């Protein structure tokens, strides 16, 4: 076997350097880096050869920093394209923190995609958590700050669980093979604790049901440009790792089905349109998780392909909503409407994104989602297939119709904002082009897939007719309910999610802890500061005087103070003791007694 080629530059190099330079430069120069660095990075990824590795030694442990395979290259391209689009979209930004950490965030995502073993995965994984939170904090509001901390809480927990999982794996397996980036499905299904913890760590980042609230909470509070970065990297890294570490794990079928199913109900009644997109994002990741869970070559391809198209069309939808927020300062469906009159281009791009996520034929969602659907059917998962079909119909409702309808049409809100800035329009235009291009030329995507898409042809007459029918009749249902005035209107509200438990439990924890520890603190304060220490300080302050009084009589008898009465000696000594001024002779005497005492005790 040929020795694996060594990579001269890690694929994330361009983005890391770009992130540092963007943090140093100011104004348009920093923005230019946001565009140039991803382009250089794209070129760097294109030079990667399958099988090449990059190793380094850290604390005497050899770490495979990067290992190139087809999946890593695909995600490498994807993350650089996403960084390019997001950089272009944020071109007007003049906040060096957001720009710099945005590029570094993309770099850590590339690092995860190329990670060659679990240790390097852990290092990049932590980087992902830390660099991403600035897209939320950049909003600089109290709500965003709090939300950022909740976001960080989840992601730091994810990192710790990953580390714990790796340590347990090392104990169970031993040796360097414990860190190998291989399928852990067998270990997981054999009940291995390490594998379970690693799955849980990835599960937090993939927004598994119950662990998903950081997503709907954080992204909705982020800056107008923030979710464009956020939606591209974190969850896709998780999907990438699921496909590497847990292909064919049966539990993922259940988890993925749930993820595709439950968020759509929330999406229908949510008022914050970016939060609607968050719920629809969980639904889409559900499809990918199911693809990984099915575990056949084509299904894995489907999951990876869906991650690829999803980053582009979900980014496009977040960009259109970000433009609305940027221009109007408002993102609640109840307050928007009629914006198509003054933002026609944004409206058009949003509709292209909506058509892509709904998987209309000729748009990108169609060519990737169908891989997963058809594999679910071929493997005989009838119930799961019906759930996914239900979810697919649900996507049309909340992402395909609701988002463009309530933002740009619906009632006239009276708002007439300016069209989005040119850089935003260019970024949305680029994504829209990719959505349609990949939808019409799926072979470009399929040839990048780990298993080349298994010779699948999405434009089969049966499939096109069935899918179009599903979509049109879903829209028909919406139209009918809307005309009958049964459709739930957008109202100012929030909906309780699982975070109800976290937040209530958090408050209960805080409250009980504060009662217990603060109570204990007060008791301890009263005992030590008020009681013991008061007595002790009184003793040290008054003690010498009292001692001097006791000693004055014997010292007088011994003839130390000739020519003085008892009272005079006592008064003299007390004054000396309380002010701390003694004649040298007395001090020397005490010193000698003290040393003798020590000598005696030391024996």
């Amino acid at each position, binding site marked *: 076997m040929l020795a694996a080629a060594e990579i001269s530059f890690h694929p994330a190099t361009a983005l890391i350097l770009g992130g540092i330079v963007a943090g140093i430069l100011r104004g348009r120069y920093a923005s230019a880096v946001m565009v140039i660095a991803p382009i250089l990075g794209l070129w760097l990824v294109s030079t990667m050869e399958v099988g090449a590795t990059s190793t380094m030694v850290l604390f005497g442990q050899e770490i495979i920093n990067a290992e190139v395979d087809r999946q890593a290259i695909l995600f490498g391209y994807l993350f650089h394209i996403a960084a390019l689009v997001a950089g272009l979209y944020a071109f007007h930004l003049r906040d060096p923190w957001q720009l710099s950490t945005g590029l570094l965030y993309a770099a850590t995502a590339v690092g995860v995609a190329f990670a060659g073993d679990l240790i390097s995965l852990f290092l990049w994984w932590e980087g992902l958590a830390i660099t991403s939170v600035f897209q939320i904090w950049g909003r600089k509001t109290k709500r965003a700050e709090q939300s950022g901390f909740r976001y960080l809480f989840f992601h730091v927990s994810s990192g710790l669980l990953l580390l714990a999982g790796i340590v347990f794996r090392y104990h169970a397996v031993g040796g360097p093979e414990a860190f190998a980036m291989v399928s852990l499905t067998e270990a997981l299904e054999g009940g291995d604790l390490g594998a379970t913890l690693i799955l849980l760590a990835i599960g937090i980042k993939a927004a598994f049901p119950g662990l998903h609230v950081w997503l709907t909470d954080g992204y909705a509070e982020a800056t107008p440009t923030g979710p464009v970065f956020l939606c591209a990297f974190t969850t896709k890294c998780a999907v990438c790792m699921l496909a590497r570490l847990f292909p064919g794990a049966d539990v993922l079928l259940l988890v993925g089905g749930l993820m595709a199913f439950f968020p759509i109900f929330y999406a229908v009644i949510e008022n914050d349109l970016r939060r609607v997109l968050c719920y629809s994002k969980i639904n889409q990741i559900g499809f990918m998780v199911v693809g990984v869970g099915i575990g056949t070559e084509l299904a894995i391809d489907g999951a990876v392909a869906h991650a690829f198209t999803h980053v582009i069309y979900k980014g496009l939808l977040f960009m259109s909503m970000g433009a609305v927020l940027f221009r109007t300062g408002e993102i609640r469906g109840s307050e928007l409407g009629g914006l198509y009159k003054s933002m026609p281009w944004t409206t058009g791009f949003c509709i292209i994104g909506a058509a892509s996520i709904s998987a209309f034929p000729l748009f990108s969602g169609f060519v990737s989602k169908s891989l997963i659907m058809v594999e679910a059917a071929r493997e*005989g998962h009838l119930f799961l297939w019906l759930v996914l079909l239900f979810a697919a*119909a*649900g996507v049309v409702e909340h992402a395909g119709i609701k988002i463009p309808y309530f933002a740009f049409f619906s009632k006239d809100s009276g708002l007439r904002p300016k069209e989005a800035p040119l850089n935003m329009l260019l970024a949305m235009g680029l994504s829209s082009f990719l959505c349609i291009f990949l939808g019409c030329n799926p072979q470009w995507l399929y040839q990048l897939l780990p298993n080349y898409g298994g010779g699948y042809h999405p434009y089969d007459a049966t499939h096109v007719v069935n*899918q179009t029918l*599903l979509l049109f009749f*879903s829209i*028909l249902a919406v*139209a009918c*309910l809307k005309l009958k005035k049964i459709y739930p209107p957008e109202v*100012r509200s929030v909906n309780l999610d699982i975070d109800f438990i976290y937040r209530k439990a958090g408050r209960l924890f805080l409250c009980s802890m504060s009662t217990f520890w603060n109570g204990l603190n007060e008791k301890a304060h009263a005992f030590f500061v008020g009681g013991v220490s008061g007595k002790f300080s009184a003793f040290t302050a008054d003690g010498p005087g009292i001692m001097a009084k006791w000693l004055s009589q014997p010292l007088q008898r011994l003839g130390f103070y000739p020519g003085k009465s008892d009272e005079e000696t006592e008064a003299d000594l007390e004054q000396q003791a309380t002010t701390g001024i003694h004649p040298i002779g007395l001090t020397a005497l005490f010193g000698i007694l003290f040393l003798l005492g020590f000598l005696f005790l030391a024996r």
Partner: protein
Amino acid sequence: MPTKKKSKNEPKRWLDHPANVKKFLNAFFGLCALLLLIDLVFGFGWHKHAAFHDGMGGLVEGPETWPVFYAIYGFVSCAALILISKALRSVKGHRILMRDEDYWEKD
């Protein structure tokens, strides 16, 4: 940034006329009917490729080959989705998931 408001002498757009909205909807309903017709012809007169193989239990061919299955499934799922979601907000005045906008800010 102050957003410009609607001015009084703004020209009316095509979609501002209710008659045009009606036209648009009618075109959409017509398209749905046409698609249904295509599916019927395709489903009965031709044959649809089955994706489910033998793992289908008693069924010889999977639901994806049944004519109009997708139309009914799409319509029913979407209607059910909306009705259930609406109920999740509140049932007969009892709020289930919906809360005031400042729910988490209140202390």
